[in-house]
Every structure is written in C-alpha cells, then in structure tokens.
C-alpha cells in the first residue's frame, strides 16, 4: 500500500469535531550570551516575552524587519539553538488525547524522537544548504521516512516527490545540482515526510524569483487547507498577504501586534505595522525614519518610541501585551 497523503482533516488521527492540535507559546524569551564585548553589550535579547497561538487549519505569519529576532523563534521551537542561548518561558504542543509537550524544557531525546519531523516539520531558509552535500536527495528522503517509521519504498518516494511537484528522477541529484526551486521542493518533501501537523517555514521565499515565490505561497496555502497548522516566518509582506490568516508583527524581539490578516493589511493599528506597509513599493513607498535598535541595548518602554511620530510620555512605560501593544494605536489609518 503506497503511502498516500490523505488530508489531515479526514484522517482518523485528529477529530474534526475537537479544536485539533495547536501550538501555544506563552512568554517565550531567548537570550544569547556573547563574550569578547563590553559587559553592557554582552547579552542579545533576541526574543522577549513572545505570546501567540497557532491552530490546525490556520496560517500565522510572523513578520518584521530582518534583525528583529523572528528566525531565532523557529530554531527555539525545535531546540536547535547553540549552547550559548538561554530559553525561558513556555511553548506547548497541545494535541487532543495526549498530554502537552513543553518544547522549552524538553531534553534532546524527546525532541529528536517525538517532536521533530513527527509533530513539527521545518522548511528551512536556503534549503540547499540544509541538505548533506555528499548524499543524494533520494538517500536523505528514504532515510527520513525510515527513521520516522514510514514506508520508504521507491513508489512511496515517487508519490512524495510528485506530491511536492518533483519528478522522481530529480531525487537522484546531489544538493549542489539542484536549482533554487528544486531544492525548495526537496525541503518541502522532507518536512512532510513524517506527516507533521505543524509546519514552520523560515523565510521560504527569500532570494527566489517572483514566479517561484508564487508556487511556494500556493503550496503553503494548500498545507493549511489540508488541515495543518503553518507558522510562516518572513519579511516578505506580499507573500504573507496571500497565505496568512493572522499576522504577528515583531519588533526588537517583541510581538507588538497580533491581528487578523484582513485587519493588518487593510487597517493596521500599530504605528510600526502601518509604517511597514507604507514602505512597500506597491503602496506609499515611504521609509520609517531611523534604525531598528540594537538587540543588546534595548531602550526602556516601547522600543519603537524613537522612530514613532505619535510617541508621548506614556510610551516610557511598556504597553500591555494585547492585540496591539501600543498606548495610542491608530484608529483609521487607510493604507493606499
């Protein structure tokens, strides 16, 4: 019986009735200790007090300027951070009928045997670099399927290849022979090998041509419609617009706005979110003045204060973390 990819919604493992599995991140913080620099600049506050949720059948886009700490989130969830990272807070995978798995405290063995590939599939940035250069795509795909306890016969591999838009013969190529698009598809196949219910896509569209971005975006949309949960981490707002159900905006390591996609793209209420959209060439194309702060020297209160034209004394205090973390959100900002 070749491995057929039935949509998760209809497969028995998840009850269509219940809320299904979900990832709940609650107060997650990641700090890096670096040496060889002045003590006051020795701690990088990459992620501070992140709070969000991703449910099956939903796509949450985590957007922000590069350098705001969003890519660290992907590695933190899968426990792939180097040893000089300190992770605090909680990130729980909650599936019906099984006790939740807390990703932050989980030892390496649990992550390797129960979470990675089985519950969470990672679509990495620059996919060709994440494939072992001396082994063919077929060997790595077959190995992944076997380790995840799935049938790894040649027709299973062929089915998985066709599923992500690759010809079975392409699997016999080595990573350095794959074009940008093909490497992306192999990465998708590997992420789907264990049929995980949560897909984390880390900057899947960076550096790719427009038509290729289109295929990736529609693939992510299909994964969500199939009933998987998708966490899309990107700074490409146009791609996010076509696939996200909800949008979380990250600035200087904090989530400053978490709203529905419709509201984010049509009526952004956080000044920074509005600024991001205004900067797009397809919109006002006006830059946000100033620079993002250094993650080693974060200002007190709202980090966006130095660049915000609506800043008031109130902004000295950190705004309450709710839908829009701002003391004076915009009410009717129309984005042309």
């Amino acid at each position, binding site marked *: 019986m070749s491995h057929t990819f039935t949509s998760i919604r209809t497969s028995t493992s998840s009850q269509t009735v219940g809320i299904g599995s979900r990832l709940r991140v609650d107060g997650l913080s990641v700090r890096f200790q670096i040496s060889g620099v002045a003590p006051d600049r020795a701690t990088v506050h990459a992620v501070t007090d992140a709070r969000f949720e991703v449910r099956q059948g939903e796509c949450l886009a985590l957007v922000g*300027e*590069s*350098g705001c700490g969003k890519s660290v989130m992907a590695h933190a969830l899968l426990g792939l951070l180097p040893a000089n990272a300190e992770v605090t807070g909680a990130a729980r995978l909650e599936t019906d009928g099984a006790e939740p798995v807390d990703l932050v405290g989980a030892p390496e063995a649990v992550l390797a045997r129960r979470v990675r590939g089985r519950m969470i599939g990672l679509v990495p940035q620059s996919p060709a670099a994440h494939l072992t250069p001396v082994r063919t795509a077929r060997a790595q795909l077959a190995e992944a399927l076997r380790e995840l306890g799935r049938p790894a016969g040649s027709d299973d591999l062929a089915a998985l290849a066709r599923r992500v838009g690759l010809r079975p013969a392409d699997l016999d190529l080595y990573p350095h022979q794959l*074009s*940008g*698009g*093909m490497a992306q598809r192999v990465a998708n196949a590997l992420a789907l090998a264990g049929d995980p219910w949560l897909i984390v896509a880390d900057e899947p569209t960076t*550096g790719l*041509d*427009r*038509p*290729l971005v289109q*295929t990736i975006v529609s693939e992510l949309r299909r994964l969500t419609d199939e009933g998987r949960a998708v966490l899309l981490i990107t*700074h490409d*707002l*146009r791609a996010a617009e076509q696939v996200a159900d909800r949008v979380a905006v990250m600035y200087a390591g904090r989530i400053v706005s978490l709203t529905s996609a419709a509201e984010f793209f049509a009526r952004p209420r956080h000044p920074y979110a509005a*600024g*991001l959209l205004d*900067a*797009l*060439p*397809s919109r006002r*194309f*006006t*830059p*946000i*003045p*100033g*620079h*993002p702060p250094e993650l080693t020297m974060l200002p007190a209160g709202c980090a966006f204060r130095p660049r915000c034209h609506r800043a008031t004394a109130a902004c000295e205090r950190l705004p309450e973390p709710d839908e829009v973390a701002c003391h004076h959100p915009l009410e009717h900002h129309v984005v042309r």
Partner: protein
Amino acid sequence: MLFAEGSPAEGLRADGITVAYDRRRVLDGTSLTVRPGIVTGLAGPSGCGKSTLARVLAMLLRPAAGRLTVDGTEVRRWRHRADLRTRVALIFQQPRLAVDPRFTLLDVIVEPLLAAGRPAADAIAHGERLADEMSLTADLLTRRRHEVSDGQLQRACVARALALRPRYVICDEMTTMLDASTQAHLVARLESYRQETGAGVLAVTHDTDLLARWCEAGAVHHLPAPDGTSLVR
C-alpha cells in the same frame, strides 16, 4: 546638467555585449542604454547575466565582444586603466562583501575622495555630510563591518557610490537582501540625487513591484532566462 567637466550627458550605451565564463555564454549580443536623468530598469530571472552586464557597464569587466560608450566616448581600456570609471558608480547586492573588513564606515565613504586626491580634512568633512544624508548617525561611522547591520552597511556603500558625483548609478539588486523600510529609504535618497544632478540610474532587480514603482514607464528591459526553459524550473 550640473556636471562640471566632460561632454554633455548622452547616455551610457552598451551594444552587442558578449561575455562567456569557460564555455558558458552568459551574455550574447545584449544591448542596453542607460539614459541620463531617468531610472532605467533591468529585470530577469537569477542566472540570466544581470550582474555581469552591470559590471560591464561599470567598466569592471571587459566583454568578449561589443561596444560601450559613456556620453559618446567609446571605452577602450577597462578596470584600473578605464579613465572614465569614476563617472559610473556600481552598488552591489551583498554590502558585507563590498566592504573591506578593516575599514570603518567613515573610511569606506571617504576612500574614493582620498583616491581622487582630495585633502584629508576636506574629504572627511564631505564624507560626514554624505553619511548624514544617508541618516547614518556619528556613532556608527567609527564601527567596522561586523559591528553593523546589512541595512546600515548598504547606506555607507550608497554614500561611497555618490561621493564623486557619478553621472550614472547602477544598483545591482541593491535592496534584495534588505527589508522594505531600508529599501524605501535608499530609493528615496537615490531619487533626490537623480533629481538634483540629472544622473541616469539603472535599477537591476527581479522585484516587479519595485520596477513598476521606481522606473520610468516603458524603460524596463527583460533578459531571457539562461537556458531559455520555463521560469518555474
């Protein structure tokens, strides 16, 4: 035109340019003109030779065949010996590779001025003005490459490119690695330079929205995919 010396600006013309890297022909008889005073676009999938053409236009790469003329003068000598090379400025895609790791940001901006024989004090003052126009704060100017972000580094590279008031500025995927806000800022700065000096700008990118918003209507050239197969491959 506000340029002090040289003939009137008639454009940076490349005719029938052919470049081959060990048996693989990257450019085959390509022609392109960067007209002064407007923004010309150059688009095409990765691997179609956009960057190679940009380096030929900047007189950094001698083509196997074809002609390049700068405001009517044909370019005969290339790289170090090309005497018109300061008239065309090239901004690279990866700022981190386009900056010497030992240079501070100020060194980067001031280097072309010093190379042109400008006295140090005068060059530094001019450099600081250029940095200020790119909203690079003073504390950033003393930092080296690994202590600043890509965005701040690219601002220094743009300041360096504009230091000698070039007539043509080629932006080779200048903002592909950067986020929307930095991109908007760099493009705004280049637009004010163009309006102020009437220089010609060539925007090389595969971002269709950026081309549509930044380039002159109808002035966008498309290079074919390298092996002519469908783009999606």
